[in-house]
């Protein structure tokens, strides 16, 4: 189904995108309200929460260019050494920028 990108078509497209995104923001909470928070469910949620982050980052590290890899490596080293989050992020981005400007 194709929708024109003018007039009411635009309203439909934006509203539909907003609703789908809202459904993702609310859906997990809504579904969980029917799941009893037992021992296994808690273990699952706890393990899953860190895994989400890992799952987002892993392809960036493996499939990304050299700048992306060095940026992540820099952030990792700085956070482990200093525990300063913003410093680690800024250092990572700076490295990515430098590698790309030079490369």
């Amino acid at each position, binding site marked *: 189904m194709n929708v024109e990108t003018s007039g009411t078509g635009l309203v439909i497209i934006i509203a539909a995108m907003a609703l789908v995104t809202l459904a993702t*923001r609310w859906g997990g909470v809504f579904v969980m309200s029917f799941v009893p928070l037992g021992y296994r469910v808690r273990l699952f949620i706890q393990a*899953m929460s*860190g*895994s989400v982050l890992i799952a987002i980052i*892993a392809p960036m590290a493996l499939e990304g260019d050299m700048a992306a890899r060095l940026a992540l490596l820099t952030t*990792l080293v700085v956070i482990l050494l200093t525990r300063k989050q913003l410093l680690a992020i800024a250092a990572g981005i700076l490295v990515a920028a430098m590698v790309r400007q030079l490369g």
Partner: protein
Amino acid sequence: MNDIPASLYRLNRALVMDGFRQLVPISLFVLVFALAFGLAAAQSGLDQTTILAMSALVFAGASQFAALELWGEQVPLVPLLMTVFAINARHLLMGASLYPWLARLPPARRYGVMLVASDANWAMSLQAFSCDKPGFGLLFGGGLSLWLFWLLGTWLGIHFGHAISDPDGLGLDMVLGCFLLAMVAGGEKTLRTLAIWAVAGISALLAYRFLPENSHVIVGALAGGLTGVLLGRPAHER
């Protein structure tokens, strides 16, 4: 996690303001990311009202960029919505992971704070909760900060975006990755968590290679979650 003190799920003006302030530094990075979006959207032929409405109502960067890929005189609605859903499906996991604490809020607040749930404020609130600190101020106040800067950045990008012609050259595509990595690596690191992360990472990569696009986050997260269940109780809670 079984007995949550009432102070953890407080949500008042002071906590929201504090959460807002704590997310401002990250929001500045988001501002530049939004600037890149505003520019790209304007170049794809969207008018200002549409671009701003999309940023204000959708408020999910990666999926908005993806929408531009499908943009033209006409837009195929079903593929567009499937793409938006796949990219934003990680919000489902965010909501579920915060549920043990969200469950203590009255429904209106529970769903109200999730309106502005995004990667950065979710990660910070979850980290606060796991250190037994109140996290809803970070989630909601921080979300408002991210939303405001996302909208402002979009507007700036529409009007002044050409100043940044090459956001990747400035490393801006790495903002999210570096931020999330800093969140993960700043948390607890036991053999158990490392095992869970290894499973999550490897399954995410396999899904990235062999399964449909954008499925890797869900696959990795579920595999990590299952590993947590199989490994049983964390050592320090025994």
